[in-house]
């Protein structure tokens, strides 16, 4: 079987040639220029394909890894480029999806017209197919200028392969699924007074990915087409609709997973000699527990977001039950559980996820935990340590300093170190009753562990004390609002102007810190869709 460098390759190449002759940089002549490209995350990609083609389509492939910026992977969608390797992955995935869609047994489902001949071009039917899926994949209708060359390509390939469906397949794979209009949210703007605001289709996209982590549904696309989404009332109506749906949970899960940095588990490994209870179920179980807690509290119970710092209610499976050393009832894979007050557990802070993601493979790390919690919950990232730090004291577990507290204090007395450590360490040290996998341990090298701490001049004891302090700290709720806003717009949370979400934050605080209120307030605020004009270039080769 020889490689099929057939004539349809010629067709594709000339299509691309035409592309470049007509339109510099951009892949298609579109209504307005694109102001920002936001690469779909892996889960957004998968959900979009599942919604457009159905969940039975198998998506096998490699995706570009995200990068955390300002504490959120969502922010990197705006700055990520597609590497050659990543591009290869997307292309192969696109080919595989298109092959499945055009398989004989699936044609009835996906191709609503029948070509006059199965071995010759049929522009009308090809057009129908391409424009239908083009609209769904690009999240807006294709213009004629976009449709024509794609239909022509399908025809060319049909001719050379003598199979209509092969033509559709390559058109779908090459010109739609592998196109930047699908892989990226193409955000376009229209003038709004002196500012720019996202156009209706871009709004549909941004709202859907925030609320449901997926592509805009039919009703959303219609609301964009009719101009409804260009109005405040229209936006409010769609926001209410999206938030009333159970699919809101998918969107909020994606948000919490990002904000709480749960993808850290992909790189978390524990020493199996030291931690018997660490196994392959560890990461997925801990991730699921934390997401269930977050969703149960903030969505299902419509509770006070601040209680994420203090609640002792959780949901655990058999693996987690062993780590927490509590009995498990086998009524289902997951069971609700409430820690006793004596357990010393407090909210998400002391769940296996938070405790283990920010620890070493073989021991806990108050500094790592403190730094992470400050970044995640207080929006206070810590700069990297200076290059010439001597870690020998703090890492010497066999020396005269028995507890990590003593070692850290010795390490952090130098002014250069103290500036950061005095902030992060008290947080981490208060969590020291929990080891690197989140199990309780009350002594270290035979000595009892001191978990007292001080934050912003407030003294507290242990995780429960820390939880209460964070619960009461307005920085936490402000940070939460900042992160939700940044996630929705794909911005670096450190660069976002507080004014962008100020009104939403006020609503949030006034009405008892409920996620729904915050989410609605953000999504219906003009700031959510506001975009800034790009800076003029310093130098251009050609004007």
């Amino acid at each position, binding site marked *: 079987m020889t490689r099929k460098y057939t004539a349809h390759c010629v067709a594709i190449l000339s299509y691309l040639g035409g592309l470049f002759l007509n339109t510099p940089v951009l892949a298609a002549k579109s209504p307005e220029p694109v102001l920002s490209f936001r690469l779909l995350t892996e889960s957004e990609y998968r959900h979009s394909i599942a919604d457009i083609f159905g969940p039975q389509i198998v998506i096998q492939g490699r995706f570009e890894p995200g990068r955390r910026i300002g504490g959120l992977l969502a922010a990197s969608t705006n700055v990520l480029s597609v590497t050659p390797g990543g591009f290869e992955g997307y292309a192969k995935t696109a080919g595989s999806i298109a092959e499945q869609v055009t398989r004989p047994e699936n044609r009835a489902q996906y191709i609503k017209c029948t070509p006059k001949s199965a071995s010759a071009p049929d522009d009308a039917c090809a057009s129908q197919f391409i424009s239908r899926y083009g609209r769904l994949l690009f999240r807006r209708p294709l213009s004629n200028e976009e449709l024509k060359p794609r239909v022509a390509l399908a025809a060319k390939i049909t001719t050379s392969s003598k199979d209509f469906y092969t033509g559709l397949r390559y058109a779908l794979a090459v010109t739609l699924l592998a196109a930047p209009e699908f892989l990226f949210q193409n955000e376009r703007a229209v003038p709004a007074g002196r500012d720019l605001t996202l156009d209706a289709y871009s709004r549909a996209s941004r709202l859907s990915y925030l609320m449901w982590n997926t592509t805009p549904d039919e009703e959303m696309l219609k609301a964009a087409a009719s101009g409804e989404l260009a109005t405040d009332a229209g936006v409010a109506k769609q926001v209410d609709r999206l938030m009333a749906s159970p699919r809101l949970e998918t969107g909020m899960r994606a948000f919490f997973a990002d904000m709480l940095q749960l993808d850290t588990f992909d790189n978390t490994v524990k020493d199996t000699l030291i931690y018997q209870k660490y*196994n392959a179920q560890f990461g997925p179980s801990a991730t699921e527990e934390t997401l269930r807690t977050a969703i149960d509290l903030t969505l299902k119970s419509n509770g006070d977001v601040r209680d994420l710092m203090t609640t002792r209610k959780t949901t655990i499976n058999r693996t987690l039950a*062993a780590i927490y050393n509590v009995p*498990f009832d*086998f009524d289902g894979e997951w069971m609700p559980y409430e820690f006793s007050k*004596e357990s010393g557990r407090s909210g998400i802070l002391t769940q296996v996820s938070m405790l283990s993601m920010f620890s070493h493979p073989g021991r806990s790390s108050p500094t790592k935990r403190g730094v992470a919690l400050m970044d995640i919950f207080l929006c206070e990232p810590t700069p990297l340590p200076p290059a010439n730090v001597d870690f020998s004291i703090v890492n010497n577990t066999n020396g005269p300093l028995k507890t990590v507290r003593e070692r850290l204090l010795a390490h952090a007395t130098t002014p250069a170190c103290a500036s950061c450590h005095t902030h992060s360490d008290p947080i981490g040290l208060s969590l020291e009753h929990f080891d690197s996998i989140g199990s309780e341990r009350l002594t270290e090298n035979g000595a009892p562990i001191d978990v007292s701490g001080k934050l912003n001049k407030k003294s507290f004891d242990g995780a429960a004390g820390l939880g209460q302090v964070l619960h009461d700290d307005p920085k936490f709720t402000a940070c939460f609002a900042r992160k939700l806003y940044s996630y929705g717009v794909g911005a670096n949370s450190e660069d976002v102007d507080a004014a962008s979400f100020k009104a939403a934050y006020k609503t949030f605080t006034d009405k008892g810190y409920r996620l729904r209120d915050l989410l609605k307030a953000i999504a219906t605020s003009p700031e959510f869709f506001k975009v800034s004009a790009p800076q003029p270039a310093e130098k251009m080769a050609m004007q």
Partner: protein
Amino acid sequence: MTKAMRVLALISVVAVAATPALAAPWVRGFIVDQYEPAFYYGAKTGTMEPGTDCPKGTTPDNDYNLLLKTKWRSDAEIAKVLKPATLEVDGTFNSQREFLLSAALRYRGFRRDIDTWVNPFAAQDPGMQEVTGKIGEGFDLDHNPKTGFISPAGQKGVDNNLYRVMGCGMAYRGKPFSSYLGTRANDKMLEGLFGIVIRVSGTKDPMNDDNAVVEIGYTPERIIKDAAGKVVPDYSYRIAKAAQYTKLSARIKNGVIVGEADIRMPVFSWFENNRGEITFYKGRLQLGMNPDTSLTGLVGGYIDWRQYYGRDTFDTSSSAGTRETYYHENQLAKYYALKRNADGLPDPKTGQNMGISAAFRLTGVRAYVRDSSKVVAINEPLSSKAAPTYRELFRKASMTAVIIPDPPRRRGEDDEIPAPKDKEQQTVRNEEGKSTNGISSDP
């Protein structure tokens, strides 16, 4: 108790061997991580050496010439079985030869057509290398210090005649948790073949309680091991109650639990098709709760010796073949030895002993043993249809001493070994050599 008090209490536990008694209801749970027959090894190292238990060492390989010799089987026939001309192998033992040999070993009686695994009494007792040592592990089941072994700790009258019969065989000989089938069964148990949980509860003090309750039973939960293969503590396991379960009262003294009752529990098993239940009649248990939270102990009683033979011989319809080849056993000798050494449960009608004394050792790791609101299902053995049929046939034959002829053979059905007179069937069987229920009959 506040957190601070808990810390102090923990430190004092670490420093002091035993906490002072507190009268309060308590529960302890364990998942069994090792389980095997309690056969005392009288040598110092290895599994084969001569020792006080077996002065000649472990029972050697069978001499198949000898085994196959009968009045009616000619030397030429024996030669053909041991060195089949049809197979182009340099006279060595391979899986095809195995099946030929098994098929022949099945017939060792005084007449050509008698299946002697079903009717072992239709052949002479070939004699068994039994344990002749004085030390044995187990319980004084008949409360008679004059009958039985002396335990390693010096207790007299320990009844463990299963040990006497099986203790010199290569399947079970060796130091604790080192014998061939012992290690193999353990590996399979920890890989999910079955599981045993033990729950102890009382109202006074786990170290000393006259009114304790012990439950022992099957758990369907997968046993969780760490990266080094050790069972992980603190996992939860359900206990099934429909079968393989016993609840008995017990007394605890200095952490050692002692109880007496008929005990039904999971049987020692290493194969998908020999899982199931065993009953220790007039059963006894003695389990020590160690300071490191583990459990060590013995379970014993009289077991139905015909059931034991039946399981060994027919856990597939031909597992006797495996035992007589790979495990160097002789099922006929085993039958006679079991019968001879049966020492309990006399049949009211015949006076014959139906039971043989036995003991099993086990260790456990701390765990949460949980009841379930729903019925807990038990994984049934994956057995061929033929196996239980053959076990029943044996039982009937041995109870009546009336020879039961071969049941009709159906060609192609799993585990069916054709009678030697049907040469064509024999060839077909050997070429296929496969079982069809997904379970290999490989030993």
